């Protein structure tokens, strides 16, 4: 370990430098080939450097037996006696997150060098990716909520840009816009929560706030923790695609696959989880908020899983599974098992990244084909992808021994037994979801790799295994998702975010539940095997059997249409007809023009009075004199 001044700042800023360099080269310099190589060097070099620094920082942390490193960078503003600093905060939690971000981030960059190899705006892609890393690191390393918020919005921007990366197709750009707007809705809540905290604590430094709420620093702030918690949670739902703001994530698959892997599976979408854990001090005082969080989480997990059952787009399936997994994490948060949530974040980062990249590799192999009904039989054609995919699938399905198994099992357990609002109901739903997860994942595996080939012939002709830059990454991630579970993060974090105590009379269920969840996993596997392993007509028959349900699911519960009808259209209609036509044009301008025409009419009247007849004029004079006299007479 080496002592580096401003190490944390360096970690954050390196990707920014990458972004700037690449941005300049990508836009200004047009030299294609040279440009691409340079872009990949810059684009991958800086994240890797950041990763190295992170490891180094972690060692430093360890050396200082885990007293948080605080590294002020500069003062943003001072107003009166309150000031907003830009400072970085490095403790166990942010250490883990940073490692994931930089680590997974770097490998995905490497992967992209292969995946995006012949895209015409290669440099721009890496610029955006670096930009994303910069903001993400800002998010996880920021000490003040303000800095966190900067990152928070920044990653939103990056995701907006990357989703709409292929903007020639308006649909992609639309998806990007949708993501941004939806996140903005969450951010509004976030802002309100932040204001509330500032009003209550007079600062936005999260460690201070937590301390204040834990009562360790004088009196507990005069504000309902649950209100703050809920407002922040609104922000989290936006970023982490929870009900009701999850709608953007599936559309976000419009972006290039590495983006889906990095942003919409591994890192950004878990920012919400990170936020909640970071503010755990507040949430521990906010049982109601936690309750809401748990319910929303489990509901999200369940619904997303049901939708995932019937998706036919390989990336859509993964997207909904991501939503579902995020639901699990929030369930964990809801029952106060913060460490566990982070645990799942990490494992999920591994296997979901692996899955997405695998999917990417498949798409790459099939020249852009994403519909799993047009796949199958790829096992032999692209073996590395297949095997890594198998491992990851097994992991997410919760097959014992793999990473997913540990994290998910702990979540289920705390959902059942946590003294912070754990309940059999939560567990039941979650378990059922786990079953579904196993099922749809294996369904995906089956339809993609096993069984007979359903590919278009001309696609089939040049199916090829991806280059090493991609497969290597797949292998690495597969390994991680296999062994990632053996490092028990919850206990690593325990000193910082203690695990909730267990309800005594439920303790002895642990063994049973363990068994049940294992059974669930294999049941899912079996179900998929039965369904898709057999004759091809069977799935069809089952589909016919539950047609209405199937339709509802494949229509994603019509949520998008609902929002469109309830929010988007009314807003536009009111603006157009009521405010613009009615308000501005008719009422306001109408009033104005009315007055104007009144004046001109009066002018016309006066003009007509001026007939040019001297007699009339004399009459005026006469009348004037009389009037004046009468008036004065009356007056005197």
């Amino acid at each position, binding site marked *: 370990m080496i002592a580096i001044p401003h190490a944390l700042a360096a970690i954050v800023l390196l990707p920014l430098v990458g972004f700037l360099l690449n941005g300049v080269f990508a836009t200004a310099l047009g030299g294609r080939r040279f440009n691409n190589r340079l872009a990949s060097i810059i684009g991958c070099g800086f994240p890797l450097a950041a990763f190295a620094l992170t490891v180094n920082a972690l060692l430093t942390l360890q050396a200082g037996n885990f007293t948080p490193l605080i590294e002020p960078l500069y003062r943003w503003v001072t107003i009166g006696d309150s000031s907003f600093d830009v400072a970085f905060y490095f403790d166990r939690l942010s250490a883990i997150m940073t490692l994931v971000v930089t680590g997974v981030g770097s490998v995905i960059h490497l992967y992209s060098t292969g995946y995006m190899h012949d895209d015409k705006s290669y440099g721009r892609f890496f610029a955006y990716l670096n930009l994303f890393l910069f903001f993400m690191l800002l998010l996880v390393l920021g000490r003040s909520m303000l800095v966190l918020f900067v990152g928070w919005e920044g990653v939103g921007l990056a995701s907006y840009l990357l989703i709409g990366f292929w903007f020639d197709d308006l649909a992609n750009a639309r998806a990007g816009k949708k993501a941004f707007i939806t996140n903005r809705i969450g951010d509004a809540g976030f802002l309100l929560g932040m204001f509330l905290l500032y009003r209550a604590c007079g600062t936005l430094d999260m460690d201070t706030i937590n301390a204040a709420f834990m009562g360790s620093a004088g009196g507990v702030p005069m504000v309902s923790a649950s209100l703050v918690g809920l407002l922040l949670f609104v922000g989290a739902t936006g970023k982490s695609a929870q009900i009701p703001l999850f709608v953007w994530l599936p559309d976000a698959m419009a972006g290039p696959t590495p983006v889906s892997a990095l942003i919409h599976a591994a890192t950004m979408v878990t920012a919400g989880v990170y936020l909640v854990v970071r503010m755990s001090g507040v949430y521990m005082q906010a049982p109601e908020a936690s309750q809401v969080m748990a319910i929303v989480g489990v509901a999200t997990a369940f619904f997303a899983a049901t939708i995932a059952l019937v998706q036919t787009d390989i990336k859509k399936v993964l997207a909904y599974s991501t939503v579902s997994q995020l639901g699990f994490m929030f369930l964990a948060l809801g029952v106060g098992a913060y460490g566990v949530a982070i645990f799942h974040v990490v494992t999920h980062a591994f296997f979901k990244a692996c899955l997405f990249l695998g999917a990417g590799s498949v798409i790459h192999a099939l020249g852009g084909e994403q519909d799993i009904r047009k796949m199958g039989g790829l096992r032999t054609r692209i073996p590395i992808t297949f095997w890594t995919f198998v491992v990851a699938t097994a992991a997410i399905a919760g097959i014992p021994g793999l990473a997913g198994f540990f994290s998910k099992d702990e979540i289920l357990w705390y959902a059942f037994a946590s003294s912070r609002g754990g309940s059999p109901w939560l567990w039941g739903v979650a378990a059922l979801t786990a079953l579904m997860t196993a099922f749809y994942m294996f369904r995906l595996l089956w339809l993609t790799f096993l069984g007979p080939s359903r590919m278009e012939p001309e696609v089939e002709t040049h199916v090829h295994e991806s280059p090493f830059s991609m497969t290597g990454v797949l292998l690495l991630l597969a390994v991680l998702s296999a062994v990632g579970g053996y490092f028990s993060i919850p206990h690593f974090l325990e000193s910082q975010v203690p695990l909730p105590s267990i309800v005594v009379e439920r303790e002895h269920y642990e063994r049973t539940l363990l068994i049940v969840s294992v059974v669930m996993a294999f049941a899912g596997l079996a179900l998929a095997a039965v369904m898709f392993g057999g004759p091809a007509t069977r799935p069809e028959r089952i589909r016919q059997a539950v047609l209405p349900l199937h339709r509802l699911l494949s229509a994603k519960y019509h949520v998008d249409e609902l929002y469109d009808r309830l929010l988007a259209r009314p807003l536009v209609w009111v603006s157009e007809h009521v405010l613009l036509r009615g308000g501005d044009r008719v009422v306001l301008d109408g009033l104005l023009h009315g007055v104007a025409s009144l004046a001109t009419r009066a002018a016309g009247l006066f003009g007509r009075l001026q007939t040019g*007849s001297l*007699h*009339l004029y004399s*009459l005026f004079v*006469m*009348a004037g*004199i*009389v009037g004046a*006299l*009468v008036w004065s*007479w009356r007056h005197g």
Partner: protein
Amino acid sequence: MGLLALGSAALMLFLRQPMRVALALITTMMALGGIYGLLGVHFIAAFQVLIYVGAVMVFIVYVIMLLDVKEAEGSPRFSSWRVPGVVVVTLLVAVFGVSIWNSGSGALPGGTSAPFSLTQFSAEFLSRYWLVFELTSVFLVAAIVAALAVIKVSRRVDG
């Protein structure tokens, strides 16, 4: 005498022929002159007769004769504003009448005063008011120039 003046003045408004109107006006002026005479300001009376009847009216009469064009045929005598005009004027007279009545004889001690003679007056005029006298001359000059100018214009218009 006063009634005569009033009557003929009223007559002015109703006579059609400008000439007769002129005659009526002359009558009025004569009557006024008489009144001045009775009031004892004889020189004013004299001026009244001399300047007005002697100069102004003669001039007007001359002009009337000069362009006594066929005004006779039925061009309307009155403007379309006679009714309101009459109304308003009666009002005016009424107001004035009341105010005068109110002002009462108290304000104006009716009675004796030295009816000043021509010599007195001219002495006053040329001593205290000589400036006015001067200014009058200036005014006359200006007036003459103006009149000449107008006549010149009309001549220019002719040819």
